């Protein structure tokens, strides 16, 4: 069965420091990969996605993620975080199901920025 594992439930980091949020998935078929962000009291928003092509994908606010097929990982990174990055980050994979695609979600990682 497909699953997504986010290894850290919380990641505290100082402002302007680099951060990596880890995501591993298990699937026997090709998948599409996503990172979503949820700011306090908001719904989820797409941060970035990997569908095909270059394994390194970037968001408009400085995050990047690299698809590593051999390690079945899609870790999210940012070289320098800001207080506004405080949020919960969810990794998801899209897998085939019933002639459609279904999203499988990780449990989320709370990014806590320390001033």
């Amino acid at each position, binding site marked *: 069965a497909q699953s997504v594992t986010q290894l850290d439930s919380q990641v505290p980091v100082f402002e302007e420091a680099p951060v990596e949020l880890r995501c591993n998935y298990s699937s026997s078929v090709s998948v599409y990969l996503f990172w979503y962000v949820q700011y306090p009291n908001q719904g989820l928003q797409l941060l970035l996605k990997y569908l095909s092509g270059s394994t390194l994908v970037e968001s408009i606010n400085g995050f990047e993620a690299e698809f590593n097929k051999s390690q079945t990982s899609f870790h999210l990174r940012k070289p320098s975080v800001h207080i506004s990055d405080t949020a919960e980050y969810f990794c998801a994979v899209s897998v085939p199901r019933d002639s459609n695609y279904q999203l499988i979600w990780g449990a*989320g990682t709370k990014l806590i920025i320390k001033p």
Partner: protein
Amino acid sequence: EADIYQTPRYLVIGTGKKITLECSQTMGHDKMYWYQQDPGMELHLIHYSYGVNSTEKGDLSSESTVSRIRTEHFPLTLESARPSHTSQYLCASIPTGQLNTEAFFGQGTRLTVV
């Protein structure tokens, strides 16, 4: 910015009451979903729909029901609310087309049953 709306944002209600959580999207998406979100847990799919008059139960068993009479509207109903139903409920939609699987989310309804 996604045009998907959930009402109410917050709801506190007594045990045994019937409630309907509203979800509407103006993007013409065929696929719509209801998720239950609890702290520290992954999003659990409780219902989904691939179009009008199509509804399916998700992976997480739920006592709620849904309907899809119009493309833009996907309400979720609890006939008799219980404290165990306390949670955040997220509605999402996905555009038609298998490769474009980005989900658009509403802001959620935080339900508290007392």
